[in-house]
């Protein structure tokens, strides 16, 4: 009897009729009653609020994981190797340009390839002294590990195109943490380039399918003294800009990186720290929604096996919505790329 009562928490059942002779009204699992559902919603609200409060007041409680620019470079080259492409060499000027771009985004609070003041990605590259034939930029924000960043770029056709572009020879990456839109976050700026000195017949260096000899690290011609005008004929910016080929850009005024903790992947082991909030939130969501979904599935299974029980029509609708949410949460990726 006690077992049966316990089972009533999980499966639909009939209560005895008032006269004790027949079966009374059909009841759903007690854990699927409106009161129980309301309790889950309440618990969920409390956890959500708690996570936000902790994030604002004491983010360290949630724990942190390390995140470095070197990892991004290594993973990018890994993806290129998997696609039969030559690896990209690290270039300090591109890394410096990426750091300046990240600093500018934090300083001017924007999330875009072009700044509100009209600065293009190419102006940062030129300002860093890198003279290019081809250049490209990928941006990512608010991811908590390098793997997720590179995977998100690989899942986006335009960003993947940059990563697997055979015209690029060099790479520079900056990973930076700071405040954007009022929230603590992490920006990843990935700059690609092919220096003028590396192009066989500049400026139209349409690479052949066979890999070209690996570029050296510092084959970049120093820029001429400052001319403030930005490069002319600057190209596509959205969604992930690639400029190819370009006129020889003149350096524009140096952009000073103002964001704290910019790590540019110059073979250092320095890292920024990312919160574990997303993974915790994902685990909580999957647990609560998954539990309720499982109870509804159990209801369908039990009803389909017992002739005296009827499936409530609302169950089908609830299963649909909860299943949809589970899928969305399961495949959710933290952060965004442009």
């Amino acid at each position, binding site marked *: 009897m006690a077992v049966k009562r316990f089972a009533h928490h999980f499966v639909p059942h009939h209560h005895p009729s008032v006269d004790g002779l027949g079966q009374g009204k059909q009841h759903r699992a007690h854990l699927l009653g*409106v009161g129980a*559902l*309301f309790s*889950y*919603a309440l618990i*969920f*609200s409390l*956890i*959500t609020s708690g*996570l*936000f409060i902790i*994030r604002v007041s004491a983010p360290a409680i949630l724990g942190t994981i390390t995140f470095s620019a070197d990892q991004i470079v290594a993973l990018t080259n890994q993806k290129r190797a998997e696609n039969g492409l030559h690896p990209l060499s690290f270039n300090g000027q591109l890394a410096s340009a990426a750091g300046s771009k990240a600093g500018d985004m934090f300083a001017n609070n924007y999330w875009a390839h072009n700044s509100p003041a009209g600065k293009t990605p190419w102006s940062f590259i030129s300002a860093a002294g890198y003279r290019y034939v081809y250049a490209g930029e990928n941006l990512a924000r608010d991811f908590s590990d390098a793997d997720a960043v590179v995977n*998100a770029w690989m*899942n*986006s056709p335009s960003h993947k195109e940059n990563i697997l572009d055979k015209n690029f020879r060099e790479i520079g990456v900056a990973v930076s943490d700071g405040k954007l839109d009022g929230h603590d976050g992490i920006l990843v700026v990935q700059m690609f380039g092919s220096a003028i000195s590396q192009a066989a017949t500049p400026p139209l260096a349409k690479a052949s399918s066979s890999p070209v000899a690996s570029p050296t690290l510092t084959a970049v011609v120093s820029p001429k003294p400052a001319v403030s005008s930005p490069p002319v004929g600057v190209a596509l910016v959205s969604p992930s800009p690639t400029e190819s080929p370009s006129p020889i850009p003149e350096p524009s005024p140096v952009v000073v990186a103002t964001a704290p903790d910019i790590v540019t992947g110059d073979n250092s082991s320095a890292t920024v720290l990312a919160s574990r*909030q*997303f993974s915790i*939130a*994902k685990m*909580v*969501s999957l647990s*609560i*929604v998954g539990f*309720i979904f499982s109870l509804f599935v159990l209801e369908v299974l039990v009803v389909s096996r017992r002739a005296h029980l009827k499936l409530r*029509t*609302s169950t*089908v*609708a*609830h299963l*649909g*919505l*909860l*299943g*949809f*949410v589970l*899928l*969305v*949460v399961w*495949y*959710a*990726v*933290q*952060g*965004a*790329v*442009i």
Partner: protein
Amino acid sequence: MLMNSKVIEKLAHTILYFGFVVGVVAVYMARASGHGQLLIVIILVAYYLIWGFSYHSARKDLSARVAAEYLVISLIALLAAFIIFAS
């Protein structure tokens, strides 16, 4: 008459699930944008609520209990989306 009501039931649920399938495709297409995905979930929850209220009204079995059930499940779905995409 019975045949008709069965067909209508199936049609109603097909419409509901078609919406969810469209939602899954939309979320996949907006995978690079957390805010876009959040917006899609909000739209889907609204669709589910409208469907639920219309469906049960048509069946004449829309009670306070049924309405509360739909609302609480919507709230749980929104919280799940919010905690993931707005964090």
